[in-house]
Structure formats: structure tokens, C-alpha cells
């Protein structure tokens, strides 16, 4: 991971047309090739924050930079080259007559040749196992499939930064696992991944950095393993760490490490505690 940030905010405020600001003074620097989870309660400002990263929202006050460009003067279309945003609700982004057209829409607007667009669409259809639905109107597909279409459409744009807002919602377990493998690959290829999620198991298993939003502010931000152990702040944001971690904490009087985050680690610790006594 290089040190130069791909994304920065300075004193970012945002107010919808209500009295309460949705973001109040967010200062943030996200390194290039980060694998970041943004967590927090419903209404804590997660989606509002990430909508600033692709220019869908412009700060009421403060500034946002993508690489070294301020979003102030940039259009959503210009930022789309760098930042791909997958909406929480796939129906907010789906509108074409066929899945193929839907996925091709973004690449076409990047000014690629028809051949290049076709190649990207075919690749996206295959990567997301959507080839059987290529000629189906995406609107008639089931929710999980519509989600896949919305992610595939962003994938076809090959943005440097991927923002996925609650990607596992509406996906079944197997599809969610498959999706995370794809996301992992994107990260390995050097993309920056920003994941808005409530699924702490997924956050613990995959992401490297974690940011906790609370009432429009950044409550804490750091390496995922470290943030998952900041009990006080997690409680304040009403976030429960993964079940295995809660179990290890409850059994810490017997010698388990309260920082345990995986079944594998718990299992090994159990073995050691057992052996110790025999």
C-alpha cells in the first residue's frame, strides 16, 4: 500500500434539508489500495459520506479530494472514471432493457470502442455468472440477481476505487461468499475497496481498515483488528463484534484472548488451554 491517499476530506459538513447535519466535520485520509469497512448505525452518515466520494453529494462546507482533484468542480461523470459506486438499492441504478445493455452503459459512456465495450460486458457477465440472463430485462430478475447486475455494471467501468454500499444485503450466503472473493481479487489487483456494511463477520474476515461513523462523525478509524477491540467506541456506536470474538471475551477468565477474531484462532486457543492442563 503506497502512502499517498487516494481520497481525502477536510472538515466535511453536509446538511440535507433538515436541521440536523448528516455529517459534521469529517477529516479523513484513505490510503491507496485500502480495503476499508465503514460501519455505524442506520442514519449515522455512512451513505452520505460515501456519496461525497463520487460527487453525488457536494459538501455543504469543507472539501473532498479524489487523488489530487477536488470534487467541487468535478461532475459525477468525470469522477466515474476513478470511483465506482454500487448503490444500496439496485433499483436506484438499473434502467436498461437488457442485462447486457445495463452493464454496457457505463463503458459506452467512457468512450470505449464497441469491441472494447463488448469485451468488458462479456467479462463482467461471466465474472458475475450473469451470462444466462444477458438478454433478460434486469428489472424482472430476483433481488439478489439485480444486485449482481448493479455490481457487474460498476465492475465493467474498471474504476480505481470501488464503493460498495451494503453489498451482501439480499444476497444469499453462497453468493455473498462468491462476491467477496471477487472483491478480494479487485483489491489484490490494486483497487481501493470501500465497503459499507453491517455484517461484522464479513468486515472482520476481509477488510484491513475500519472506520466507525456515529452521529455524522468519525468515532474511530484504524486497522480492522485494532478497531474491533475498541470496546468502548463500538458500544457507543452500538456495534457488536463477530460472535466468535464475543465468545472469546466472555471466556477470557479461562484464558481466551479477547482479541480473537476467527474460528481457527479460537480453535487453536482451545487446544492449548486443554493441553496445558493434561
Amino acid at each position, binding site marked *: 500500500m503506497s502512502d499517498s491517499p487516494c481520497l481525502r476530506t477536510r472538515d466535511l459538513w453536509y446538511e440535507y434539508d*433538515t436541521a440536523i447535519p448528516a455529517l459534521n466535520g469529517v477529516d479523513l485520509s484513505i490510503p491507496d489500495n485500502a480495503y476499508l469497512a465503514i460501519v455505524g*448505525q442506520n442514519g*449515522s452518515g455512512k451513505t452520505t459520506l460515501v456519496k461525497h466520494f463520487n460527487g453525488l453529494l457536494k459538501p455543504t462546507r469543507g472539501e473532498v479530494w479524489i487523488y489530487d482533484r477536488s470534487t467541487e468542480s468535478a461532475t459525477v461523470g468525470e469522477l466515474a472514471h476513478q470511483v465506482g459506486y454500487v448503490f444500496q438499492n439496485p433499483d436506484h441504478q438499473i434502467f436498461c432493457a437488457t442485462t447486457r445493455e445495463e452493464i454496457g452503459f457505463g463503458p459506452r459512456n467512457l468512450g470505449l470502442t464497441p469491441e472494447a465495450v463488448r469485451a468488458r460486458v462479456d467479462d463482467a457477465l461471466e465474472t458475475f455468472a450473469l451470462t444466462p440472463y444477458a438478454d433478460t430485462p434486469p428489472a424482472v430478475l*430476483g433481488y439478489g440477481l439485480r444486485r449482481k447486475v448493479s455490481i457487474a455494471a460498476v465492475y465493467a467501468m474498471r474504476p480505481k476505487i470501488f464503493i460498495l454500499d451494503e453489498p451482501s444485503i439480499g444476497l444469499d450466503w453462497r453468493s455473498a461468499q462468491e462476491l467477496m472473493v471477487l472483491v478480494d481479487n479487485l483489491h489484490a489487483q490494486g483497487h481501493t475497496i470501500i465497503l459499507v456494511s453491517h455484517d461484522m463477520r464479513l468486515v472482520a474476515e476481509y477488510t484491513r481498515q475500519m472506520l466507525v461513523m456515529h452521529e455524522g462523525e468519525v468515532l474511530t478509524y484504524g486497522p480492522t483488528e485494532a478497531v474491533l477491540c475498541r470496546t468502548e467506541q463500538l458500544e457507543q456506536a*452500538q456495534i457488536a463484534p463477530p460472535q466468535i470474538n464475543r*465468545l472469546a471475551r466472555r*471466556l477470557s477468565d479461562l484464558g481466551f484472548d479477547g482479541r480473537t477474531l476467527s474460528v481457527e484462532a479460537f480453535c487453536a486457543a*482451545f487446544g492449548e488451554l486443554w493441553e496445558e492442563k493434561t
Partner: protein
Amino acid sequence: MSIISIDDLHYAYDPPLPGGEPIRVLCGIDLCMERGEFLSLMGPTGVGKTTLCMALNGLVPQATGGRIRGSVEVLGCDPRRTPVEALAARVGIVYQDPESQLFCTTVQDEVAFGPENLGIAAQEIEERVEWALNVVNMTSYGDRSPNQLSGGEKQRVALAASLAMMPEVLILDEPAASLDPLGRFQVFEAIGALCRQRRMTIVMVSHDAEHVAQFSDRVAVMWEGRLARVDAPSEIFFDRSLREQVGFAIPQVSALAMALNDRYGSTYRFTRLDEAEEALRRDLVKQQSSP
């Protein structure tokens, strides 16, 4: 008497294009539920979970068309022949996508809409709205527009709107998917309490294995239009071949139990955090105090 009784139910949607093949979704569903039972419905996308939910309140086939055979009985009515609005008072449904059911200008109106259409006295409507918003922890949002709410907050409002109807059967199609962890727990807990205290019968589609294990009496795993297995959580989550075939999430403590069993030859079968803590504590303490 069963509250829900389904016998060899088959259903196919009409072909999307004229002259095409009908889409077979339900292929022989059998299910019996007693009053006050909490059943979770798990299984991959596209196996027919939502269609089955809609067959319970008559939207399938009344609003969707298609071909249906076999029998369905909910609260002694045949949902195919009972007007949807008559059944709506007794069988509540919360959809996957909250936006498909929100349309009023304030949260309060939204939650009051159902009871108002049941012809209930104004005073009682007010009480129900207050109660329902309290259950989903949205009391302070009564005057807000649903449009101004976040995804998870909208889902809470959709749930409150159904609760305010006080249905005897409540069908929930992934109602907690976009809620934050605490909100999700609160919703499950509220529904669990309705189930125990008011003997409400619950059918809930959920992929959240940890909450499913904590709150449901039985889990139905759906696969290719059928119920592959309907059983207690401790049976379902330890059925490896079923899991291999269907692919569904299991609680992290159950994954731990299996890992411990494989590695150390133990025979753990816990599905809930409390059970796991108790069993492991008991065994380790016994081990540590043995000479």
C-alpha cells in the same frame, strides 16, 4: 388446529413472453405450522422463498396470475379465494424492499394507514402507532417524511406499519437485512416477543443464521421449489450434506463447534452464544479442576 397448512403446493408464473414456458417456482411444498410458532425460511436467492410468502396472503396467485395447484390454508381460509384485503387484516407481510410499501408523507401516517383502513377507532389507532413505533425504536421519527430516512430506518417504518395491524400471522421477507446490528437484534427480539406473548405466528425469510438460531423454533431450508428440510436449528445447522447441497450461513459458534469436533473429537452442537459459553466453560473448568 394448524394455523398454516400447505399440502403439495405447486406454482408457476406465466411465461414472461407469449408462447414461452411458464416459470415453475414452487414444486411440491408441504408445511404445517401451529399458533405461536416462529419459523425461519432460509435458502439461496431464486429458490421461491418470496413466492411462498406471497402464497400465504393470496398475492400469489391473485395479483400475479400463473398456475397454482395443491392446497393452502391460512387461519382456516384459502388465500386463493379470500379477497386480499380481507386477509390483510389477519396476515401481515413486510417486503424485502421497504420502498415498495412506503408512500405517505409522514412516518406516523404511514404506520396509521393500515389500521385506519380496518375501521378502528382513532384513539386506538393512535395507541397502536405509538406502540409500533416504539417496538422498532422510531418514536422520535413520527413527523419525518419516509423519504428523508436512511435505508434501515425505512425498513423499521415498514415493519411498524405491519405491526400496527396486529395480524395473527406475520410474514417477513428479510425484514432486517439493511438494519444495523443492534436494530436487527431489536427487531428479532420484538418479533420473538410478539410470537411468545401474543401467540403471533411468524414466518421469516432470513439469511442471518445467528439470529435465526436464537429466535426460531424451526428452520425451513428451501431448495429448488421444495422445502429440503424443516427442523430445529440444532439439526439444520449441523446437517453438513444439506449445507453442501444448498449453501446457507450457519452461526459462527456452530462453525466453531464443528471445527472443535473435527479437531478434538468433541460432540458440541451449540447454535447460540449462551449455549457455546456454557458448554465450553463447563468442560474447561472440569478439565482444569481434574487432578
